[in-house]
Structure formats: C-alpha cells, structure tokens
C-alpha cells in the first residue's frame, strides 16, 4: 500500500442501537487490507470505545480513520459537554454514566483507559462546553 486512505464517519448520538457500526466497518476494511489480527483488534477496540463514548456522553460526533503504510490514526471529535478533568477521566473506574447507561453495559469507567492501553499514542483535547477531540495512533 503506497498511498494514504481516509475513512470518515458521522456518529449518530441519538441512536444507541447503531453505536459501534463505524468500528465494525473499519474492522472489516482493515481485514480486507491485510493487517494483522492483533493490529486490527487494537484499532477497532480503541475506536469502538471512543465511538460509544461519543454516543453516551457527547450526543454523537465524527470519526476519521487515516490508514498509512506504517500507522493508523484515529480522530474522534464531538461538540459535547467536554471533559473538565482529563486526568480523573483517565482513571480506571471513573465514570459519570447514569444508571440507564449502566444498565446497557457501559459505565465501568474503563473506556478511556482501554483506548490508551490499545494504542501507541493518545491525545485528548477538551474544552468544557465546546467538545472533545481524541487522537490515537497505532503503529503497524
């Protein structure tokens, strides 16, 4: 693969049922492009956690996945409430998810730590009242 490929997704914040479809799509694309199962799993799990977060915490957003020959970059961007204390949000077990979200299986406070664990680099930019952008890189 010589050139760079971009996949762009609009993530619907109203629809919990369809949340994660973009990650499923990316998983399929990466498989077709011949990446190793380990790389595919790391990218798709990290993206899935971010996609779910945008749906449950930020009323949706956009996802961009850029695939280069040596790395995969994922950028998740939303105009939700923002994260006031990023260090706290990154702690395992910290969650502000309400009971109705917990009853759907989310709110363990493990999503952001998982995203960090599965990627080689992760950067969170967030402003309260404006939104959050999370950029992640996985080296191939």
């Amino acid at each position: 693969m010589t050139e760079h490929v971009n996949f762009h997704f609009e993530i619907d914040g109203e629809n919990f049922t369809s949340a994660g479809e973009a990650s499923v799509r990316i998983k399929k694309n990466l498989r077709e492009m011949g990446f190793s199962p380990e790389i595919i799993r790391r990218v798709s799990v990290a993206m899935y956690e971010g996609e779910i977060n945008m749906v449950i915490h930020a009323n949706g957003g956009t996802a961009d996945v850029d695939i280069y020959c040596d790395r995969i970059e994922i950028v998740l961007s939303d105009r939700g409430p923002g994260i006031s204390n990023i260090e706290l949000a990154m702690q395992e077990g910290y969650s502000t998810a309400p009971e109705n979200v917990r009853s759907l299986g989310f709110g363990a406070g493990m999503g952001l730590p998982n995203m960090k664990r599965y990627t080689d680099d992760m950067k969170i930019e967030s402003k309260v009242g404006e939104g959050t952008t999370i950029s992640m890189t996985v080296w191939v």
Partner: protein
Amino acid sequence: MQIREIAKLLNAKVLCGEEHLDREVKSACGCDMMSDVLAFVKDQAVLITGLCNPQVVRTAMMMDMRCIVFVRGKNPPQEVIDLACSAGIVVLASDERMYTACGTLYVNGLAGGAEVHDRAC
C-alpha cells in the same frame, strides 16, 4: 471445549450458528460491563452475559469472540441474533444465572481469559 458441549452443560438453546458448534474454545469471560470485556484480551472466545442489546454482539465482534451465551433466561431480540449470525458468532440462551453458568463451565475445564496489564501485544 467444543461449543456444543457448552450448550449441553448449560442446557442452552442454540439461537444461531448451529453450523459452528464443533468449534473449539479455550476461555471465557462472564460480564455485564462491556468495557471490562474489552479490557481483557487474551483469546477469550466465549462471552457470558445477562444483557441482550446489539452492543453485546459488537463487543464480541471487536474481540473476535466465537460464542455468546445469554443467561438468566433472556431472550435476545431478533436484530441481536441476526447481527451475531452475520458475524459468524454462535448464540446460546440458557436459563442458568450468571454465577452458575460460569461455575459450571469453569469446573468442566473452560478457563478464564488473561488480563492485559500493559499493552495488548
């Protein structure tokens, strides 16, 4: 353990993936919190859960799992079954409760998955 044996031990109905019942699986994870499932990486093949929304299936897809067992007599909606089916994941439904289902599989030789502490690979 073959998936067929899981179905037998848990007295479970096979809701989809009948053709994959011969598949061998080595470890399982019992959980109702999806991010906890996603935190454990080492070759877990079976997800045992009491939830039945589409995110359970997508979580299993992300982790390349082969079988989902819905416990506590839950009947997953058809869209959930169809999603699993399209991903080649076997869906079982059992009346057992989570604790009993996990315990039964564990004593019969199905191990727990390994936790990732540092990096996934």
